[in-house]
């Protein structure tokens, strides 16, 4: 089981709780009640959390970005709410699969992305599915599944900041990122 336990930071102590005032909602109240300070069960002090620490990555071979042909391409694009690798994307996936097949030490991460419309979580799952679809193409084209990590950023890391189809079409994308690159 792959799990990180974080160091526990104890910074402040929750103010002592006292019993909340009791109220009788139904009957009109004619007697004066003295209630103690209404301290909520939820914390009054909320210290900021500490950052998580990432493990180091190993370097590995990778093809030059922007070199001629499909191997120079690093992105595959999609239609809205679709994860189908289209005819433009297939040669790119196949070219990188070929590289991975010839370089057993090379490893990649496929990063799925979506446009800004709709649910953040559904888009996160959709980005994952887009990346998985590329992985499927690659593993039947010479790459080993162990060389491929899949991650999704959903709609959280748009490359283009616009709110129209010209930006959205660029943001519906899987990026091929070589480890150590």
């Amino acid at each position, binding site marked *: 089981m792959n799990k990180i336990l974080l160091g526990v*930071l104890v910074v402040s102590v929750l103010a002592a709780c006292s019993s909340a005032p009791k109220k009788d909602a139904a009957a009109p109240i004619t007697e004066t009640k003295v*209630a103690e*300070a209404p301290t909520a069960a*939820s*914390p009054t002090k909320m210290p900021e959390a500490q950052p998580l620490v990432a493990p180091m990555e190993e370097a590995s071979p990778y093809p030059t970005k922007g070199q001629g042909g499909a191997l120079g391409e690093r992105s595959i694009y999609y239609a809205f709410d679709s994860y189908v690798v289209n005819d433009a994307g297939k040669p790119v996936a196949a070219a990188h699969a070929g590289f991975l097949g010839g370089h057993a030490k090379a490893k990649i991460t496929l990063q799925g992305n979506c446009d800004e419309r709709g649910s*953040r979580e559904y888009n996160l*799952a959709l980005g994952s599915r887009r990346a998985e679809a590329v992985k499927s193409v690659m593993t039947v084209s010479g790459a080993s599944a162990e060389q491929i990590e899949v*991650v*999704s950023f959903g709609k*959280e890391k748009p490359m283009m900041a616009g709110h129209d189809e010209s930006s959205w079409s660029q943001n519906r994308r899987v990026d091929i990122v070589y480890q150590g690159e």
Partner: protein
Amino acid sequence: MIFNTPQRLSLFGAIPVIVFAFWMAYSSFVRAELSLEITTEGLKQIPLAMLPFANERDLTTAVSPIVIADLQRTGLFRQADVSGVNPIPTETSQLKLAEWRAKQATAVLMGSATIEHDGKIKIRYVLVDVATEQEKLIEVISVAPSQLRGAAHRIADAVYEKLTGEKGVFSTKISYIVKDGPSYQLRVADADAYNERTILSSKEPIISPKWSPDGSRMAYVTFELKRPLVVVQNLSTGARKVVANFRGNNSAPAWSPDGKRLAVTLSRDGIAQIYTIDAEGLEQPRRLMTTRAIDTEAVFTPDGKSILFTSDRGGSPQIYKIPVEGGTAQRLTFTGNYNVSPRLSPDGKKLVFIQQNGSAFRVMLQDLDTNQLQNMSDNALDESPSFSPNGRMILYASRANGKGVLALVSADGRVRQKFSTQAGDVYEPAWGPLQ
């Protein structure tokens, strides 16, 4: 420990003015960081005479203005004409009820503050029904000077409950993400947006914060390690623990009603599927069901017996329901090709979600008894709807003037509020539990 310095914005500054047909009231409140606008439509507001509390000018924080702002913010009440009341009554016997009847006030709220020898503040308040001349509420609260805002919210809660029969939510907290340039911050504030504090800052995205049922912890998804992990943060200590860190994506946390378990979405076996884990992240995840489709956005029903979720198993994302022990999923949404982000009302009878309608993504409300649908917004890009803990309001994220804003709409669609921040986008709102 870092607390944000409350930053007051100028009144009406950075507030987008939207006009609803037949709007009757328009008011603005300014908060630390967030500014708020309220609109109501076709609603007859109940007039209340909410008087200044005697001696509250001697306090560091005057109480009655906070109570009045809370009650007015609901859109249900308006302040009757209380000008020229001198001296300020503190007892029913001092009230000239005929005058208040003439001013059409339904009820009078009055009170007084006393600074006690130990430094505590004693606040006594009385709510009187003008028609029956009955004292509906008499209470004495004793608080430290630093707790005066909290005391005011408690008074507003009590008054609201007495007048409407529903629980007030003025003492609750809300949370949201602020994205300002390259910085993402998870913030918590009082329901009136005061006392805002940042509980997590990151250069990487944070999404899906969810309050534990007791309000002591928050589960969320962080990309700090370059891929989504589910973390549970203790709000009083700031300590956090990664509870889901499997291969691929770990996301969409949802608390079980007892606070002991979380439903999460994991893509460790390829496609996004729903699992349940213990809230400490110690046990192996239990897979809820096995499908060849995206299953995500789990939410427990209030009885803890079922889970609602989004799935594209039918070819388009729709909302389904399944028993927590697994079994047969039942589809709940039937109109439209994109229905996502289900959340239930506290009584479990109403469903809110986001529906795509042409180019718009809007909050929809579905009555689960009749399956009747109501469009709750006329925005273009709504997301992340949820109910207030008393079920009266729906809180969601939207966009206005090119920025991410938070919006509130009453469950009857009549009262609308919008929060915006001058700095950047605000989104992923979540409402903490009743206290």
